[in-house]
């Protein structure tokens, strides 16, 4: 019956964190929540009324009124009377003292044992941590009630002894929570600083850790109190607690159970009281947890966000010394061919507080058979979102506002029609994290065979043969063996080859590759790109490539679409882009490419960062980082203009600035 609630992962509550500048204290946050306020006041009132029962109760606990036995609620007896005519409300108030105090004992015991043990486990770590973890797992695996019965067999009717034992049994659960908080705090840098500056271990614990623990511990204790009340009243109900006529909540339910044939009403106020008090504790604990989270999240949210930003904002780099080789395997592009994949004016947005905020605006591009179109830009420009919108699988919260896709002669409305898209059979996708993209519970064989059967309608044996062939095609030398492996048994490069094999299982005409080499070792990146190019040469596959890496672009792309702050700012062939970039952003990106630099020269970094969607200025979105920005650039939205050759650029000053730069 031990139920422990652990604090949910931070991410689950992150959304609740307001971007407040001035952070109110925990109490302030708590008082601002109606649930916390109501449940807190209710609990306080119950506790005070029970303690003050001799003064506030309308009758004494054993005063009998034979004129009104087994009566329902009335003005004289608000909650009715029992079979002896005793006032139910008064007995609940008198009985509450016993129930609440013995439950509180369990809470105190759990605190006294669990807090220091959990702190020791979290702070000392190592063997201590393991032993404590083992003990707590062991105790949680046991039915607590039988131990409590053993205690009561030895100390008859002594519920304080039983609840003391219960406190010991739940202490490991509390210790576990404390441990995880301490562990988290310990990894913060300032603890190391404190250590270096010579504050003793105990001093560090007291000053830094204890202050952070408060909230988490109190949350856990409200839950322990709730469970304790349930357990205590259960034992009372069984007649193992104080003997009649002493009232407790549990014995009152037991009395009510004797009268279910004559007076079922009695069950409602007695058991109902227990239920309402435990519910109030739960709600109080829940809002307290929210308040604690908000308090923590306010500073850490920002820190985490920046950490994530710097992790996923890769430098624009070119691995190795790859240079632009114009027209190698790219000779397969048929210039006159119709586009097989034509994305038209896609706008993606999210909604917050009733405001629709676009993150990608009016993006259009097309890919012809055998062609590779690279979607290029820094992180946060909307490349991946555009790609996901194009195959209709946006992450939750993002929606296509409008946009169309023409695939192989058929039109799809990306806002409403995405379920009709020929996913896997016409349009396939490979992802940035190939290992994560493979279901960890399925073998490579299951994944590939299922895919082949789904798209080609083959039988099991035939599908297996095809799967073997696909693995062979993607350069896996022991396909038989690999078919039996799971994702976690594959290296990143191998997993990406498997993903490509899966993507090709449905003989698609379009492959969307979302940063397909970013997560791979530099040594295997070239191999994977070579593989894509090879498959493309053989099948005339149209590839849409999302990347931030000029090296990858130079290696396999034929067309480039440069995105900035949710818009296309330039599109051109790769040759044109490398030799005569027009948009200042494209030029900045190229200049920041270390592979394009020369020894002894300073690398030109692109100053500033991509503005978040909420910070987009009305005029040119690049103006804040652009060396050529004028007042005119800020005045109005800049149109995307196409020249006769089909090159597009979104800059009103590109002609003059190209001259200046060259």
């Amino acid at each position, binding site marked *: *019956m*031990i*139920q422990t609630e652990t604090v949910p992962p931070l991410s689950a509550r992150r959304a609740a964190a307001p971007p407040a500048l001035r952070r109110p204290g925990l109490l302030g946050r708590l008082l601002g929540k109606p649930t916390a306020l109501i449940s807190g006041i209710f609990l306080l009132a119950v506790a005070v009324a029970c303690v003050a029962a001799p003064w506030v109760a309308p009758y004494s606990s054993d005063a009998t009124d034979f004129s009104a036995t087994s009566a329902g609620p009335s003005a004289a007896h608000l909650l009715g009377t029992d079979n002896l005519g005793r006032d139910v409300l008064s007995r609940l108030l008198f009985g509450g003292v016993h129930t609440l105090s013995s439950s509180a004992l369990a809470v105190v015991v759990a605190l006294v044992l669990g807090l220091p043990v959990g702190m020791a486990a979290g702070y000392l770590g190592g063997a201590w941590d393991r032993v404590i973890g083992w003990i707590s797992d*062991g105790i949680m*695996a*046991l*039915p*607590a*009630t*039988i*131990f409590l*019965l*053993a205690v*009561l*067999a*030895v*100390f*008859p009717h002594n519920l304080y002894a039983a609840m003391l034992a219960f406190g010991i049994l739940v202490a490991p659960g509390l210790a576990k929570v404390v441990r995880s908080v301490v562990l988290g705090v310990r990894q913060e840098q300032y603890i190391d600083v404190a250590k270096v500056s010579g504050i003793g271990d105990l001093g560090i614990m007291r000053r830094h850790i204890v202050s952070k623990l408060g909230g988490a511990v109190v949350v856990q204790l409200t839950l322990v109190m*709730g469970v304790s009340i349930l357990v205590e*009243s*259960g034992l009372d*109900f*069984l*007649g*193992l607690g104080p003997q009649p006529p002493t009232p407790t909540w549990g014995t009152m*339910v037991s009395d009510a*159970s004797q009268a*279910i044939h004559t007076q*079922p009403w009695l*069950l409602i106020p007695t*058991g109902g009281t*227990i*239920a309402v008090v*435990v*519910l109030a*504790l*739960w709600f109080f604990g829940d809002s307290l947890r929210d308040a604690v989270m908000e308090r923590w999240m306010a500073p850490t949210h920002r820190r985490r966000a920046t950490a994530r930003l710097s992790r996923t904002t890769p430098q624009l780099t070119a691995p190795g010394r790859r240079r632009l080789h114009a027209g190698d395997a790219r000779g397969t592009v048929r210039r006159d061919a119709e586009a097989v994949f034509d994305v038209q004016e896609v706008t993606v947005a999210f909604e917050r507080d009733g405001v629709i905020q676009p993150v990608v605006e009016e993006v259009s591009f097309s890919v012809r058979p055998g062609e590779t179109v690279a979607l290029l830009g820094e992180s946060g420009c909307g490349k991946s979102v555009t790609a996901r919108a194009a*195959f209709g699988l946006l*992450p939750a919260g993002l929606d296509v506002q409008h946009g169309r896709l023409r695939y192989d002669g058929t039109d799809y409305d990306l806002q409403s029609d995405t379920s009709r898209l*020929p*996913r*896997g059979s016409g349009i*396939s*996708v490979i*992802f940035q994290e190939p290992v*994560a*993209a*493979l*279901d*960890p*519970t399925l*073998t490579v064989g299951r994944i590939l065979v*299922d895919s082949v059967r*789904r798209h080609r309608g083959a039988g099991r044996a035939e599908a297996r043969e095809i799967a073997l062939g696909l693995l062979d095609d993607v350069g896996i030398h022991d396909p038989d063996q690999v078919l039996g492996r*799971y994702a*976690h048994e594959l290296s990143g490069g191998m997993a990406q080859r498997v*993903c490509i094999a*899966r*993507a090709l299982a*449905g003989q698609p005409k379009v492959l969307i590759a979302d940063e397909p080499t970013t997560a791979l070792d530099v040594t295997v990146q070239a191999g994977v790109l070579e593989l894509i190019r090879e498959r493309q040469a053989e099948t005339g596959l149209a590839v849409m490539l999302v990347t931030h890496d000029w090296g990858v672009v130079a290696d396999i792309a034929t067309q480039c679409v440069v995105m900035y702050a949710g818009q296309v700012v330039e599109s051109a062939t790769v040759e044109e882009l490398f030799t005569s970039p027009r948009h200042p952003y494209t030029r900045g990106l190229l200049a920041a490419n270390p592979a394009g630099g020369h020894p002894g020269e300073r690398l030109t970094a692109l100053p500033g960062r991509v503005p978040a969607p909420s910070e987009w200025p009305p005029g040119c979105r690049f103006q804040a980082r652009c060396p050529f920005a004028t007042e005119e650039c800020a005045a109005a939205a800049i149109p995307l203009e196409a020249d006769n050759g089909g090159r597009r650029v979104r800059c009103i000053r590109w002609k003059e600035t190209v001259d200046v730069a060259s």
Partner: protein
Amino acid sequence: MTGKIILKRVAFGIPLLFVVSIITFVLVALSPGDAARVLAGPDATQADYESLRQQLGLNDPLPVQYWHWLVGAMHGNLGHSIVNGSDVAQSLNERLGVTLSLVILATIISGVIGILVGSVSAHRGGMLGKIVDVGAIAGFALPHFWIGLILVTLLAVQLRLFPALGYVNLSSSPELWLRSVSLPVLTLVIGGVAGIAKQTRDAMLNGLGAEYTVAHRADGVPERSVVYRHVLRNSASPILAVVGLHFVGTLSGTVLVEQIFGLPGLGSLAVSATNQHDIPVIQGIALYFGILVVLVNLVLDLVYRRLNPKVDVS
């Protein structure tokens, strides 16, 4: 592989059983009275009492007493009841069937319904999700014995659909057996099913946002298959963990439920043994409960191993 898991579970379970039995022994040592005093009765002479102590081995040091109990337990001998002298192992075995009927049925039913409701609410969300949330809070806060009493009042006393009390053996009449365990099992299920549903939903929502799920969808796997085959299978670990915890809670719950419904199982025996200070019986029941927990965790491990190859067996 399977053998390894069994070994690991047993290696974890045996110390657990030791802990259970040692705790109960230490409790006895703390006890102010002793079994000899109870058995001898109030009229016994001091000499009678002393010889009874000698006979019961109560003069030996505690570790020696524990050793004797342990050797006996290994041979299936859990001693004799202080109250009526009956063989503990034998009376426990007679009552085991009742308790097993309850906990196995309750765990399977709440497991199946909880996982079903949880995964559907993860898929569809909306109203069902809110019901799961409310149900989980209610399952936590409402005293289970109270739920049982309300069910008796409504379904047995008012509507007379089920018997309010008593137990019929499965072997003597399956139909009457089912009717006799229905309300107790329903009580246990109501207490835990929403908790399992909530855990299932939370685990599935995690899985629905995972990269492999996007990859399945991108490969044209039908949504139904994505949710109920792939994501569900990947969520097995937290779901089975909560089913295991729920089983432990159900075992505790039988103590109350058997008492309410007058079922002759281990739980109601534990209550009467507590009232009569019958320590050997309590020790025996604690041991049986411990063994059941170890066995159920073993079964859950094996199920999990079948579902997820990545589980660590080292």
